[in-house]
């Protein structure tokens, strides 16, 4: 037992103090102070975040934290969003649910991202957790409306059901009707990913009308415009709403009904959806625009003039997602109207067309960086950029913490000078000292990585594609970026040397993804031998990497640290150093 000083606090008091410390980071620090704090903290930890479901086993988590109420798990690596991870790779949640069903009867929140969730898992959740409240399935797959029906039927206290961007199979079950008539607790419902057959509109209306606490409602595409107005009238207390398909031609009765419905919604702060919207209907939302803080128009094919009009009605906007139809002129209007803007994402309307179909250039981003003093987070797709613009942006906005630039065509150079963008991105990392996420694009040499290694000390996630000249580039990043957690690389000439030299660094990171680079299977095996706490997975659908010539490089490589050892659910196209890994069980 550690010595107790006169001023020291009892366990109960400490536990009470810890209850006011909720951030993951601070909780981890508390557990590392001394043995007694470690013990106290682990018993009162209620929320767990596991960034990589294979880094630890459910048994380990349960052993250390016996009283968890809320868990968040992530499965596949980020590049799975770009179809770089083959189907069947992994990320199954059932083993976790099975263990937690026994150990955490009071678990009330499960949040999953990029995991494979089966109906069996959903049924197990419905059965095992009596007070279940929150289910978030982001970018998940593997389940159908049958599983949803089980949740709806059993979870009497469910508050949040969020299926954002998941793939749901339609089993023709009217799952919404499985919410009993006595069920009234819904606060947040996101079914925007569901197809038209999967939502019974009458059941939805009944559900909305009996849930007075409903604050966030994101419907799917198939809800027609007049129905939208009905729903809004049933739930004027909504704070977040995803609007639906707008019909082709303007009808004044539909319009006025919609406008009236919107004007009732005094609490509305966030709008999204807008699929196939006809600009003539946009004025229907003008009554709520002045209070809007978040607007997602990334599905709306409205052109710049209408966008400018809309944006000029939204002075409180903090977050905007939009297509490149907004053009430089629209971004300039944004910069002058929306002084509270914190996050901007501009997506390409037609990324596969070589020619730009909208006049969006680096100028738009420069304007926003100049006009919006609170801008912190940027995701920007464009076709042309200059070092000068990047330097200006960096100098204007040193408070940026997320900067993701996607110059659509790989290896595009500075359009003014023909130079690579080393200097531009160098300025970004040098000025933006709090940068935690960065995506690179355009023509880049090893120099940019030298800058990144030198300046980007707080960088946690880096995405690189078609960049660099040699292993030196990767070496700079691995040896310089002290806070690096996730590194994802594709189509870069990085190979064995940088990887092996910085093997120890990999254990301090969450994961490294390299595809279409120059890493050999020999190096992978070597790395795996040297670093037992790393799982080194070679993903190669062409066949055993051993069967190819020695200097042949691996297709995809996913390295992540783990205290759980090698996983037992690897598909045949994932190769590790253990050739005799006969423990390949099917999921």
């Amino acid at each position, binding site marked *: 037992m550690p010595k107790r000083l006169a*001023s020291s606090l009892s366990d109960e008091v400490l536990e009470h103090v810890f209850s006011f410390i909720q951030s993951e980071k601070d909780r981890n620090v508390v557990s590392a102070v001394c043995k*007694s704090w470690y*013990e106290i903290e682990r018993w009162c930890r209620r929320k767990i975040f596991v960034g990589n479901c294979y880094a630890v086993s459910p048994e380990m988590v349960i052993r250390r934290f016996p009283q968890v109420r809320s868990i968040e798990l992530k499965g596949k690596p980020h590049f799975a969003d770009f179809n770089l991870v083959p189907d069947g790779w992994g990320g199954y949640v059932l083993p976790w649910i099975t263990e937690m069903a026994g150990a955490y009867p009071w678990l009330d929140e499960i949040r999953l991202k990029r995991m494979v969730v089966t109906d069996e898992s959903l049924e197990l959740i419905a059965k095992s957790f009596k007070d279940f409240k929150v289910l978030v399935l982001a970018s998940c797959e593997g389940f159908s409306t049958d599983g949803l029906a089980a949740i709806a039927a059993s979870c009497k206290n469910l508050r949040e059901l969020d299926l954002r961007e998941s793939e749901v199979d339609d089993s023709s079950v009217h799952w919404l009707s499985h919410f009993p008539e006595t069920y009234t607790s819904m606060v947040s419902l996101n079914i925007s990913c569901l197809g038209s057959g999967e939502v019974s509109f009458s059941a939805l209306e009944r559900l909305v009308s009996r849930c007075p606490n409903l604050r966030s409602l994101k419907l799917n595409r198939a809800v027609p415009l007049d129905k939208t107005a009905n729903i809004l009238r049933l739930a004027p207390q909504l704070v977040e709403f995803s609007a639906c398909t707008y019909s082709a031609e303007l009808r004044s009765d539909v319009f006025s009904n919609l406008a009236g419905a919107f004007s009732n919604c005094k609490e509305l702060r966030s709008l999204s959806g807008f699929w196939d919207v006809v600009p003539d209907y946009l004025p229907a939302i003008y009554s709520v625009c002045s209070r809007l803080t978040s607007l997602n128009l990334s599905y709306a094919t409205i052109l710049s003039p209408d966008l400018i009009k809309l944006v000029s009605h939204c002075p409180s906007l903090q977050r905007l997602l939009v297509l490149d139809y907004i053009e430089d002129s629209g971004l300039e209007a944004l910069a002058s109207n929306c002084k509270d803007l914190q996050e901007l994402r501009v997506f390409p309307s037609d990324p596969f067309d070589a020619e730009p179909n909208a006049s969006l250039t680096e100028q738009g981003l420069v304007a926003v960086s100049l006009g919006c003093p609170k801008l912190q987070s940027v995701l920007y797709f464009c076709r042309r950029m200059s070092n000068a613009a990047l330097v200006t942006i960096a100098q204007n906005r040193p408070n940026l913490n997320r900067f993701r630039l996607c110059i*659509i065509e790989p290896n595009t150079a500075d359009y003014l000078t023909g130079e690579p963008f080393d200097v531009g991105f160098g300025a970004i990392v040098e000025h933006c000292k709090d940068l935690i996420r960065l995506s690179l694009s355009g023509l880049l040499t090893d120099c940019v990585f030298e800058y990144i290694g030198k300046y980007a000390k707080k960088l946690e996630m880096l995405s690189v594609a078609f960049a660099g000249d040699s292993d030196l580039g990767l070496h700079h990043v691995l*040896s310089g970026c002290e806070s690096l957690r996730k590194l994802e690389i594709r189509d870069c000439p990085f190979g064995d040397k940088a990887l092996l030299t910085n*093997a120890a660094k990999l254990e301090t990171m969450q994961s490294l993804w390299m595809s279409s680079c120059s890493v050999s299977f020999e190096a992978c095996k070597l790395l795996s031998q040297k670093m037992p706490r790393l799982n080194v997975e070679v993903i190669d659908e062409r066949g055993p990497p051993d069967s190819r010539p020695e200097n042949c490089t691996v297709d995809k490589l996913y390295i992540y640290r783990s205290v759980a050892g090698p996983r037992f659910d690897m598909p045949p196209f994932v190769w590790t150093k253990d050739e005799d890994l006969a423990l390949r069980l099917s999921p």
Partner: protein
Amino acid sequence: MSEVDMAVIKPEMMKSYIWLQTADGSIQQVEQEVAMFCPMICHEVIQKGMGSSKNYAISLPQRVNPAMLSLILDYCRFHQVPGRSNKERKSFDEKFIRMDTKRLCELTSAADSLQLKPLVDLTSRALARIIEGKSPEEIREIFHLPDDLTEEEKLEPLKNTTDDPRIRLLNRLYAKKRKELKERQKLKNIEVEEERVDDRSVDDLLSFINGDNGDSKGIKNSKSKKKNRRRKDQQKNTSANEAIKNHNKEPNGLNQVCCSAEVGQTVRAGVGATSNLHDVEDDIFDNKNELDDGDIDDEIDPALKEKIDREVEDFARRLNSDWPERMQEILSFGHERKPVHFSLNGNGSLRRYANSEQR
């Protein structure tokens, strides 16, 4: 305490003052309405009839010394007045809480022993704010806490394997031995290392690992044997969650939007990145970056390592001798098909079986 409640109390107790005695023996009298703001004092007065005179002074818990009592009474004196606005109360609290951490801890403990919840909450929140954003070292300094987690536990705070202090002792011993050997080896090899220019290619590295650098067959075998054992131990030796870490918070908890068009540069396959792999001078890479951490054990004299392993095994056996009941417990769980055995690192199997301790 409302007026109605007060009226029910016997007349003898309707004094204006309550007598309190702190652990140091000193006795003082305090205005009744102020003292009764503390549930503990209230309880003593009403349930036990104490506090009415000097002879029947209420003994306060040990953690409430005169200085703390004074502070607490100041707090009670302000808050027991019913007419104050929330703004006033908040403002008072903010000023009240400004004190050094040591006093804040004392005050928290004292308030807790008097069951004065609002003050406990106020002081606890203040302590939480002090703790937030600091490093473990800083926190230890502020609160005068011992630095008693093992090196391994500190480096990877989430990897702590067992709850059993005896197993932790074992870990510590092992870690200490490894460190000692590292020092000894460093001194021995200092000449050798200075000469060694590291321009090994992958093949060289491979052969080094496989022991083809002139060592005898015996050593080669023992090296790979050690590696396997170490790998197994490492896997068994680690627990909890290395990946539990900071959550990348996005504003308002908003996530990425899946726009079907969000593919950007990553979709362009086959657009030739004609990279010219120019030769990189290998001496650019520092010696010390070269596979250090994983390499240590492979460079240790095998005989010495065997000796350490034996020592640890002895130690483990000694620990085990007084664990017959514990063993029974463990064996009866029977999750794993593998037999329980105390290998090199005794905690290997224990970790799997040891259930959460009852508190």
